[in-house]
């Protein structure tokens, strides 16, 4: 899918992706010549169709995780389906508030989410994961819903 600024005859560049949480998706594109911005809005069915392919509009910000689609999208996954192998030495610590927030993530997907936040912190030299770190990571990585 590409967008063309007809006036400038220029391909528009992807700018941002928003997942407002109601099943819809908004992606903005900007003309590099005139600066015009347009938004592509998809309904829940269209958004789901893209998600079902295991791809990310706007590109991947996090490497594909094992069983990522299954863990994110299966509604009837068992709580004790997975056990995470212990992380690398020097893994960041979690503040009590961050642990509490993580505990609210369904267990079926929690291990994957935990690893993504830990990798984010490790790559940036962050020693402790706090709710603020989680919020920043969600914004930077596009982890809406995690």
């Amino acid at each position, binding site marked *: 899918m590409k967008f063309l600024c007809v006036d400038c005859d220029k391909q528009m560049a992807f700018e941002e992706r928003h997942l407002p949480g109601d099943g819809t998706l908004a992606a903005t594109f900007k003309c590099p010549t005139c600066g015009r911005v347009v938004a592509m809005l998809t309904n829940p069915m269209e958004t789901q169709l893209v998600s079902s392919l295991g791809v990310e509009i706007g590109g991947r910000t996090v490497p594909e995780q094992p069983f990522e689609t299954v863990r994110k999208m299966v*509604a009837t996954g068992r709580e004790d389906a997975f056990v995470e192998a212990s992380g690398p030495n020097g893994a960041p610590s979690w503040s009590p508030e961050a642990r509490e927030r993580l505990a609210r993530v369904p267990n079926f997907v929690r291990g994957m989410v935990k690893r993504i936040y830990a990798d984010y912190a490790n790559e940036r030299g962050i020693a402790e994961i706090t709710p603020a770190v989680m919020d920043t990571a969600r914004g930077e990585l596009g982890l809406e819903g995690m």
Partner: protein
Amino acid sequence: MPPIRTYHELTDADRSGLPEQIGAQRRRVAERLAGVGRVIAVMSGKGGVGKSYVTAHLAQALARSGRAVGVLDADLNGPTIPRLLGIDHAPLSTSPSGIEPARGADGVKCISMAMLLEDGAPLAFKGPSAESFVWRGAMEASALRELLSDVTWGALDTLLLDLPPGMQRYVELCDILGAPPAVLTVTIPTAESGDAVRRAMRAAVDRGSRLLGIIENMTGQGFEGTAGDDLAREFTVPVLARIPWHPAPGVWDGLGGRV
């Protein structure tokens, strides 16, 4: 207004790179299966002919003969392979490199949706249920792809794929693998089964799969017919085994030696 340029005429970098993301998924599958000697789909156009039963026993027979064997239960909605291989539920160990398969009877490696779902629960996805017919097939294909690409199969002589009835999963499998797998077909003796299995075999031939042969299951009592022989003659493939209702253990070892 000048003519509007077409998709292929716009050549600037596409940050979403959806084709590249799909390509990366395909590469993950190929890389993961690089250590697998052969991939065999066990299929039938007909339900209830014993595909899973045959798959599990064939896997064990191959393992007993010293081969490294894995089974991927591709029946996502009706998975039965773990029970047939005597696998009790235990959490699957995960790491960034992948998911460790469970080990069943005779050391057969196995992955199945049964290991991931709540007991007795159907495979249900999050999302808008009103239009699920639009996206559910794609979601199941993605799940199948992840069962192939995200499991640390390691070096295997044979990976058996237990397919559900019908052709949809086989078609998805061909697309995901990038090449058609070899196919073992299972039928029962009846003409009705033969009709359905014939269509499946024809589709497999049309897709370019190599037909390894036919296993005629549930022979000897109750089901009358010659479907196995008829299909074998028609497709010029062997009947690899005729499995009675209560097979002696040697039947499976004999089949393992012919596959």
